[in-house]
């Protein structure tokens, strides 16, 4: 079918009629639905049975013949994954959290039939004296601004019509009909959009370089090989709003002169792959992909290529090698992808989140985009907030928001009254940022200045119970395992750094350990082939900078101050012990002895340091030293 702007508008109007409750600008008075129930259908919520909840609700509605009154929508991510499975009832955006399948019966009967919200199932922080806050007004959403995630939570990602109703594919129409390729690239350049995959390279410059590179065949690639530990920004965008990426890739194709795009997505994201396949199929059916889009000469096809689970394939040259069916290892640059990328042809590679920003920029103009964020890092950035933080989830914040705002206000602080220790950004290439830098604004340059980096958006919070050396060991373990093995410094160097870190955490560190780490760090940084190797030592260097005393405690005093490194930690029972015997009964190796109501003692030689006694003691009489 060939698409025209009239048809697009028709689909939009038609679909909008049934989307009256979805937080849209045009709330139609003659609403077809009384209630709209949005249920998060992303990996995280689905793993806690959101699909079953949706199924159950549909059964109830069907049973009572209420299908005309209540709509049920599976949506993309709302953000507060910690509260999953999330159900939002509209109007009102009432926020139900941590639901079990049977809870939906109560919500149905009380809220949807009788109009009485079920208070004990509602997210506590949204309960006020006068009623219930909308999901979008809870403290977690404060400071957030959604561009890349603009439609997530509102539309059904499996229905292209809902994307169109939200203004989808209008940017593509605008580009194809009203703009020249040069003008499109000018707008992207002017917006100052920087690549969200990690490097922060100016997107417009990348587009231009590929456009002017001579070649009769060019390619657009979307890098969806997200692999940083704790990162799930791109997965959420693909699962919640796949068309925003598809539309942007077509726009990029028009701008640089390419008629073929590939989405390189990791096979470990089955739901994202399924939604993407479905979305590409729907776009093809409506003529928004394929031949002569909007009746122009421009044609664009999109295909999916699955990655097989190598972290390094997120590196562009390794990624193209993998698409070509070769071993996914990076190669030396130049030539750059803009000149010789996929199959030796000019290729433009952006990541998922970068693409997701494009339709917004084209529709709203570069000025609107630049109003958000900072001068050198305009726009927003999506972060996957995890670790020792109350509100684990996905947040999209304007650049320039401080780390403190993210940790304390959006994140809700550290649970269990523990003290903040560090925030890790930038994945394995980034670093740990200590409390002294909490007021740093989050943007590409500020984070690099303090020894970390923006990276793709992983943000892992650590508290006083995390050991800095152990954190460095964790990241080095990841990097050494994910090193492709091609170049000497990364292949051999990361292994040696890991060995030294293991030695330190197991009490075998000596006065040569830190100097050896620093020398290896320097070598991998200077001599490695790709960014994975060049930045591999950052987790060590950044923890050494802020927590050098912790390294020294491990090495000189054979002590782990955080009590994490088992070999250096012993458990003792203090005289707070009330002799309840709970510890002794739980000890798997029976190494705790003591008479009832008397002080118990741990035989540290027998102790396997599992920590069970520590967590079971009702009076916190057990200490780690």
């Amino acid at each position, binding site marked *: 079918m060939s698409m025209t702007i009239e048809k697009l508008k028709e689909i939009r109007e038609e679909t909008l009629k049934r989307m009256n409750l979805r937080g849209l600008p045009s709330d139609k008075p003659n609403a077809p639905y009384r209630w709209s129930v949005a249920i998060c259908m992303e990996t995280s919520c689905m793993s806690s049975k959101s699909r079953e909840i949706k199924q159950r609700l549909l059964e109830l509605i069907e049973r009572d013949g209420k299908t005309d009154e209540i709509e049920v929508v599976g949506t993309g991510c709302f953000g507060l994954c910690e509260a999953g499975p999330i159900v939002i009832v509209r109007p009102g955006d009432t926020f139900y959290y941590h639901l079990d399948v049977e809870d939906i019966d109560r919500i149905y009967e009380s809220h949807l039939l009788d109009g009485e919200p079920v208070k004990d199932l509602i997210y506590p922080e949204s309960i006020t004296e006068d009623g219930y806050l909308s999901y979008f007004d809870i403290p977690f959403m404060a400071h957030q601004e959604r561009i890349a995630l603009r439609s997530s939570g509102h539309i059904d990602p499996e229905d292209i019509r809902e994307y169109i109703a939200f203004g989808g594919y209008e940017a593509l129409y605008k580009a194809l009909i009203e703009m020249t390729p040069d003008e499109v690239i000018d707008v992207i350049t002017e917006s100052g959009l920087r690549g969200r995959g990690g490097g922060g390279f100016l997107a417009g410059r990348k587009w231009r370089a590929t456009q002017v590179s001579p070649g009769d065949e060019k390619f657009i690639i979307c890098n969806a090989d997200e692999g940083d530990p704790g990162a799930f920004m791109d997965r959420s965008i693909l699962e919640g709003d796949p068309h925003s990426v598809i539309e942007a890739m077509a726009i990029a194709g028009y701008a640089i002169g390419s008629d073929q795009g590939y989405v390189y997505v990791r096979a470990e994201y089955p739901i994202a792959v399924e939604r993407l396949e479905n979305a590409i199929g729907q776009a093809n059916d409506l003529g928004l992909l394929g031949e002569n889009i909007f009746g122009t000469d421009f044609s664009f096809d999109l295909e999916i290529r699955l990655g097989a689970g190598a972290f390094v394939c997120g590196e562009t040259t390794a990624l193209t090698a993998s698409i070509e069916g070769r071993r996914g290892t990076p190669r030396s640059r130049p030539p750059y992808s803009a000149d010789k990328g996929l199959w030796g042809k000019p290729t433009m590679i952006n990541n998922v989140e970068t693409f997701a920003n494009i339709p917004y920029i084209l529709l709203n103009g570069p000025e609107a985009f630049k109003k958000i964020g900072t001068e050198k890092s305009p726009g927003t950035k999506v972060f996957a907030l995890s670790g020792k933080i109350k509100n684990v989830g996905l947040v999209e914040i304007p650049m320039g928001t401080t780390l403190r705002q993210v940790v304390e206000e959006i994140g809700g602080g550290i649970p269990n009254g523990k003290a903040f220790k560090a925030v890790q950004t930038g994945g394995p290439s980034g670093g740990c940022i200590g409390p002294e830098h909490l007021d740093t604004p989050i943007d590409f340059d500020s984070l690099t200045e303090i020894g970390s980096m923006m990276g793709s958006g992983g943000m892992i919070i650590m508290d006083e119970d995390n050991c800095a050396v152990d954190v460095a060991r964790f990241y080095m373990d990841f990097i050494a395992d994910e090193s492709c093995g091609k170049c000497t410094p990364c292949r051999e160097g990361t292994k040696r750094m890991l060995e030294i870190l293991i030695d330190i955490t197991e009490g075998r560190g000596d006065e040569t350990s830190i100097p050896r780490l620093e020398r290896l760090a320097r070598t991998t940084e200077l001599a490695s*082939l790709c960014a994975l190797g060049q930045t591999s030592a950052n987790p060590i260097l950044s923890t050494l900078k802020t927590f050098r005393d912790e390294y020294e405690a491990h090495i000189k005093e054979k002590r782990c101050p955080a009590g994490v490194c088992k070999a250096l930690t012993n458990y003792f029972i203090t005289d707070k012990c009330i002799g309840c015997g709970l510890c002794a009964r739980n000890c798997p190796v029976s190494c705790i002895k003591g008479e009832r109501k008397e002080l118990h003692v741990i035989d540290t030689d027998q102790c396997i340091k599992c920590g069970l006694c520590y967590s079971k003691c009702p009076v916190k009489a057990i200490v780690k030293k």
Partner: protein
Amino acid sequence: MIKLTINGQTVTAEDGMSILDAALAHGIEIPALCHDPDLKPESSCRLCLVEVDGRPWPRVACGTPVKDGMVVETNTPEIRATRREILQLLLDNHPNDCLTCQKAGECLLQKYAYEYGVTFRTHNGARRGGEKARFTDTSSPYILRDESKCILCGKCVSTCAELNERSVLSFAGRGFETKVAADRDETLEASTCVSCSRCVAVCPVGALIDRRVREKKIRPWEADRQTIQCKACEYGCEYEVLKKGDERVIRPLSPSGGRPLCLKGRLFVEAEVSSDLRTPYKKEETEKGRKFVRTTWIEALELDGILDRITCNETDSGK
């Protein structure tokens, strides 16, 4: 032509040339383990790092094209220190076997370790191929493999892939566990390896060794050496005759200029110049997979039939 400065010396180079090739053309040697003039640059060993235009980030000389006015320093203290670290990383994963290694004397790792004063040292870290040198694949009568010595430069993989129908060797595994594998990690005998010895000819260390030369215990520096061409076909691949006392052995030389090297050619040259003819082996498909089987020289050189006709003919004509 492009003008650039290398170590203070103004040199000219052709557009598109790498810094490494431009330097070599002017007699300036830059250490490199994975570079081969006949192969695409892998830039994997990282030894050829040089300083370009005074920038703090060194570039690999093999993968960086020359530019007009470029200023290159190949031997700054920082560069030398980084090279020493890289060599140390390689030696930490390499058995101390230079005394008995067939490659001694022409091993590039040995050469650079000597130049940069890097030595073997004991450590308690992991070693990819174990602490002791040992041949890990002795299945081929022509090629010996010792994975403990492999520095993963990738030359063998690249040269094997130059001929599409061969492409037997490839990398397997990743990170520290990376290795070179024949087909699906099989022995050379069980794999589709055709024993052309291209890989042996390009290996910079003792990881791939010509078995027949080793069995004669001749190392290149103690032999009279002479390059000859194979006459089996029009390519004229080059072989080297190593002569020590009455012993003569041959080995294939680097397959440069599109020359393929092949087993038949090797046996041809062996038959022509070796001091003794050792049993030739052919690979055959059997029920138990591919096997090397003893064969006759006449069969190995595919002379059966022809030889009879020639003999007949010459008898008939009364000679």
